[in-house]
C-alpha cells in the first residue's frame, strides 16, 4: 500500500484529500505545512507527496526545491488554485514535479494524478 504525504495549510482541503486517497486504497497522512512535511520525511518513508502550492512560510515550489536536493526521485503532485500558475507551473516542471492539478479538482482527477505519479 503506497504511503502518501499530503501537505496543505487549509484543513478542509487537507482532510478531504487524505480521505479521498484513503478510500482509494492508499495510506495517506496530512500535515499543515512544508516544514512539518520535511521534518516527517526525515523519519518516515513516503512513496509520494501531494502538496499545495500557495502556503505561508514555504510555498509548494520552495518545498519542491528542498525535496529535489535531498530526495530527487520522490514523486510530487502539486495542487493549486492560485492566479500565478503559469510561472509556478513552469518552475514546478523545471524542478521535476510529476503533475500540477488545479483546484477545485474532482475525486477522479486527484486519483488519476496520484496513480500516474506513482507509476513514474
Amino acid at each position, binding site marked *: 500500500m503506497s504511503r502518501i504525504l499530503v501537505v496543505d495549510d*487549509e484543513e*478542509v*482541503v487537507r482532510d*478531504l484529500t487524505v*480521505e*479521498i486517497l484513503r*478510500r482509494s486504497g492508499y495510506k495517506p497522512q496530512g500535515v499543515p505545512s512544508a516544514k512539518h512535511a520535511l521534518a516527517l520525511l526525515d523519519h518516515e518513508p513516503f512513496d509520494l507527496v501531494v502538496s499545495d502550492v*500557495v502556503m505561508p512560510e514555504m510555498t509548494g515550489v520552495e518545498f519542491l526545491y528542498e525535496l529535489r536536493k535531498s530526495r530527487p526521485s520522490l514523486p510530487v503532485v502539486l495542487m493549486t*488554485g*492560485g*492566479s500565478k*500558475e*503559469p*510561472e509556478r507551473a513552469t518552475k514546478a516542471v523545471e524542478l521535476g514535479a510529476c503533475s500540477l492539478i*488545479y*483546484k*477545485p*479538482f*474532482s*475525486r477522479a482527477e486527484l486519483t488519476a494524478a496520484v496513480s500516474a505519479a506513482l507509476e513514474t
Partner: protein
Amino acid sequence: MSNDAADAHSLRTLGLLLRGTLHELANPVLGLTGTAELALDHAEPGTKLHDRITLIQRTGAEVADIVRALQAFVRLQSAPVESFSLGHAAAETVALVDLVLPTHSVTLTATGDAEVIAAPGEVRCSLVELLHAALERGDPGGVIELAVRSEGNEAVVTATGGGQLRLPVAARTG
C-alpha cells in the same frame, strides 16, 4: 482622469479583485464538492438524503466549472505570443461565455479554423468582447456564431450580426 482612463482603472481593479476571488473560492468549492462526493458513498440510493447530497454535488460542480473556466482564462493572460488554433480558441471562448454570461437561451457556436500568431490572452479577451457585443445587439434568430476563416495572410473571426477580429496567420512550415 478622463472617462476612458477611469473605466480602464476600474476594470483593472475589478480584474485584480476577481483574480483574488477565484483563488479564495477554489478551496471552499473543493471542500463543498469533495465532501458531497464522499458523503454520497454513505447515502442509500433512492433516499431523500441521497437526492439532496446529489443536488449539492451537482450545484457545487456547476460553480467549480465556472471557477475552473475563469482560472484558465486568467492563466492565459500571461501567456506569451505563440502560434495556436484560432478555431479552438473560439470554441473555448464560446464555452466560457456560455458558462458565465447570461445568454438568454441564445445558442453560441464556433465554426472554422486558422492557425494564428498572437497573445492567446488578448485574443480570448477580443473574442469575449465580440460575443458580448453580439449578445447585446439582441436576438439574432436564436444563434450567435463565431465564424473563423483565412483571408490571405490574415485570419478573420466574424460574429453573427457584425463585429470582426483580424489576426496574422502563422507561417506554414515544412
